[in-house]
């Protein structure tokens, strides 16, 4: 576990991690993990090879996740009636990245969020889908507020990031009597029963409405709703969200077998754990897992039971996820998981790539949450590499 002083230091170091213009330029080099101009870690989107975007401080890739919500009609109603708000949800992603609508909710007058059934799920880039939000009967005149929340997801292979966005619509509720009907009927006695045409024009006087109604659609500002994400369990687990920029520190590894302390800055936002050499040593992996004998020497036979790409570790959806890529499976918290499984790691979790005994090699996970947010994670190799048992 981290001490308080260490935690404070790590927290301060993670503050200045917003991508800058120089960061986008530096990220073009896929080997770079930090910006050479400002030193900011390059937190690439999981789909960087398609979108080339860097995530912001909330973990959102602005290239992949660019929704736009538009109110396509007026916002005035009269007392006593309910109102249907015609909305248009657009995916303004510059690249062809689709968005997936995981849920929608509305709330009126401080009540609880009410789920809303939408008829669509996928929203391709550049596409817009209209839908309607119906309000409760408006009982009083004045300004009536309707809040709308949307859970939108972007997916890349097995990874899915869900974000909640919220916005509000203010409806001016008037007391009525706005539209007046005028009809003049011209009729005289000479026209009685002669088949003559009656001149009766009908006029609707709606000048006031025309003056106050906005022309065209109105864009509704979608703000990130992180509280709603925690409340609805869209991100994180048990109220704790692991930030994308959380710093990972590796303990107990030999020099060159684990990356330097810091956030995950690889091109796809995940770390590869396995038997292969690390990138620092000219290989393709990020963390090298080898088994040592009791005398501290390399146990080649036991090490061969570890795949070159045994795990991939990523922070996805506010959770620390371990994807077991090896067909041999792995031991997670005393339970053997088959290959292909995706397991969420928690504070105190312990996992091992060995098929039989966990004692020769395992990794322990620990972190400290602050206000429901985790910004530093420690992974400790047990036993420590290079020592004899």
């Amino acid at each position, binding site marked *: 576990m981290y001490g308080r002083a260490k935690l404070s230091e790590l927290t301060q170091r993670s503050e200045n991690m917003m991508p800058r*213009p120089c960061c986008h*330029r530096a990220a073009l080099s896929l080997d770079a993990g930090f910006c*050479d101009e400002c*030193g900011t870690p390059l937190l690439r989107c999981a789909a960087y090879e398609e979108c080339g975007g860097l995530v912001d401080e909330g973990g959102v890739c602005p290239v992949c996740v660019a929704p736009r919500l538009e109110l396509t009609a007026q916002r005035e109603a009269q007392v006593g009636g309910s109102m249907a708000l015609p909305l248009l949800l657009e995916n303004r992603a510059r690249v062809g990245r689709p968005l997936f609508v995981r849920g929608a909710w509305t709330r009126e007058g401080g009540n609880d969020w009410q789920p809303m059934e939408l008829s669509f799920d996928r929203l391709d880039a550049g596409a817009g889908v209209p839908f309607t939000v119906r309000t409760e009967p408006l009982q009083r005149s004045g300004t009536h507020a309707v809040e709308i929340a949307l859970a939108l997801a972007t997916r890349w292979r097995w990874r899915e990031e869900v974000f909640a966005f919220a916005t509000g619509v203010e409806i001016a509720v008037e007391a009525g009597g706005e539209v007046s009907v005028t009809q003049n009927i011209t009729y005289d006695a000479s*026209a009685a029963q002669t*088949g*003559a045409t009656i001149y009766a024009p009908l006029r609707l006087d709606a000048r006031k409405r025309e003056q106050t109604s906005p022309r065209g659609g109105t864009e509704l500002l979608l703000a990130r709703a992180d509280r709603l994400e925690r409340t609805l369990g869209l991100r994180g687990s048990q109220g704790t969200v692991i930030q994308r920029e959380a710093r990972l520190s590796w303990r107990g590894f030999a020099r060159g077998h684990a990356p330097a302390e810091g956030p995950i800055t690889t091109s796809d936002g995940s770390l590869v754990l396995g038997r292969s050499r690390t990138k620092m040593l000219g290989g393709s992996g990020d963390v090298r897992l080898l088994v040592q004998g009791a005398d501290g020497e390399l146990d080649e036979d036991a090490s061969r039971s570890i795949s070159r790409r045994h795990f991939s570790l990523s922070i996805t959806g506010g959770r620390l996820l371990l994807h077991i890529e090896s067909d041999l499976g792995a031991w997670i918290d005393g339970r053997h998981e088959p290959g292909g499984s995706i397991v969420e790691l928690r504070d105190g979790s312990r996992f091992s790539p060995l098929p039989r005994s966990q004692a020769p090699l395992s990794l322990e996970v620990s972190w400290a949450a602050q206000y429901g947010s985790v910004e530093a994670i420690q992974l400790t190799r047990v036993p420590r590499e290079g020592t004899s048992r």
Partner: protein
Amino acid sequence: MAIKTLSLSSPALLAEYVHQSDLTGFFEQRLVAPPDHVAILVRNGELVDAYKGANFSIGGLFAGLRSKLTGSMHVRVLLADLKPFSLQSAFRAITKDKVEVAGVVTFELQLDPEKPLNIMGLVSPIGQLTREEILERFRPHLSDRVFEAVIGRVKAEELRGNTGLQDKLQGDVMREIERVAGDLGLIVRSVSVEWALSDAERDALKAAELDRQEEMLDGDLDRLRRRLERAAEATTVEVRTNVDLSKLKLESDDEVARLALTKEIEFIDTREAAQRRQELEALEHEIETLTKERLGRFENEQAEAGQRIDLARYGRALARVELEIDGMKQAHLAEMAKLGAFTESEIEERRRMLELDISERASRQSRAHIEELARIEREGERHSVELEETSKEGDTRREIAKTRAEADSRLAMMKAAAGMTPEQILAINAGFSPAVAEVLAEQARAGASGREETMAVMREMVQQASEARVSSEEQAREMFRMGMDGAARVAHGAGGKGQEPAGISASSAPTAATVECPTCGRENSAKAKFCVGCGGRLRV
């Protein structure tokens, strides 16, 4: 002194006033009331006493003189029979379940000698009291207060055959009669009731009678059946006996064979005769059916022919009548024409022409009104359109001014970019177009392998141009610096000079030098301020 025994003048009487002549006389008389009678002495209208089985003297000269001296004295004697007497009365009453029951009540009464005043009250004005009078006095009480009240409490089915209940009712009747009789000065000795049959009982009796008759008929039927059975059994025995006897009469086998052949021939003859009879009956039936069918068909044809004849006759009559009507109509028209009147078609034609004329005039008037109203409405709309156009004109003028200002700004920008390279111009335009920014990014990726240093400058320009978060002033300054830098380098290259032109910063010049990160040992560009591997600071 003479003794006179008082007695009632008729056995039918129960009480009677002694005749006045029996009480007056020259000599005093001794009157004797029999022991089963009571003599009630009334003097001067007051009851003196009632004497049962007593004797007393009355009348005589002394009494006559004393009455003359002391005043008049009036004496009457009422003799009443104290022997019990019986009365009978029939009654009817309705039970609780609305069944009428009837009966005869017999009650034995006796005048009460202890209540002489009541006895006197019973006596009729003619001075006699009979049993019938007693009964008449009783009858309404019997039907109303006794039987209706007592029998109305029970149901007929409970009454029928229930001796205990009947005894109780009898007791109730007796108690009620005693209550009524006691008020009248009578003693009830006994009451007996004979219940007549009610309707339900009569029905039950009738049903029982019918049951008995049915049983009797069943018995007769059984007896007859048994007799028939016995007769049948006896016949069978008799036939067998005959057969046996006939068999016994046969003396040889030939006779037996002949007898069998004869029987067989008789059997075959009988069967063939039956078949022929059936065939004959079938043929007779067929003949009869055909006869009926032909007869019916002939009758139908005859009726149809009659109808056709009638129709032809009626058709001729109708044609004749229509001819007559036409003739009359023509005569009527000729007569009307002679008188100079309009025909109906002429009247109809004139009426239609008049309606058309009215309609046409009304249409003309209506059209004029509509044209006038439409003109007024168009005038109003034209005023509205003019007002709206005036308001839109202001908006348009503002839009034009705004567009002109933007065009001027764009023109100034284009003038500033006149001396730049195509890549620099694209880089600036990338700030306005994301597509251009992507093109440049691709170019940057493509050129990264060959011309790393040159393309690094381009990347920086692209990113700065496309990044929306950079403030416009800062962005403009940077763009200008980069543009000028690139333009100077292009001019320098065109001039063939090997050195950098003055004013170009060293940071933007391409260089192949690298530095090693002291923290992680990674090779970095010499101009890098931070290590791209660990983020460690390389230079200040």
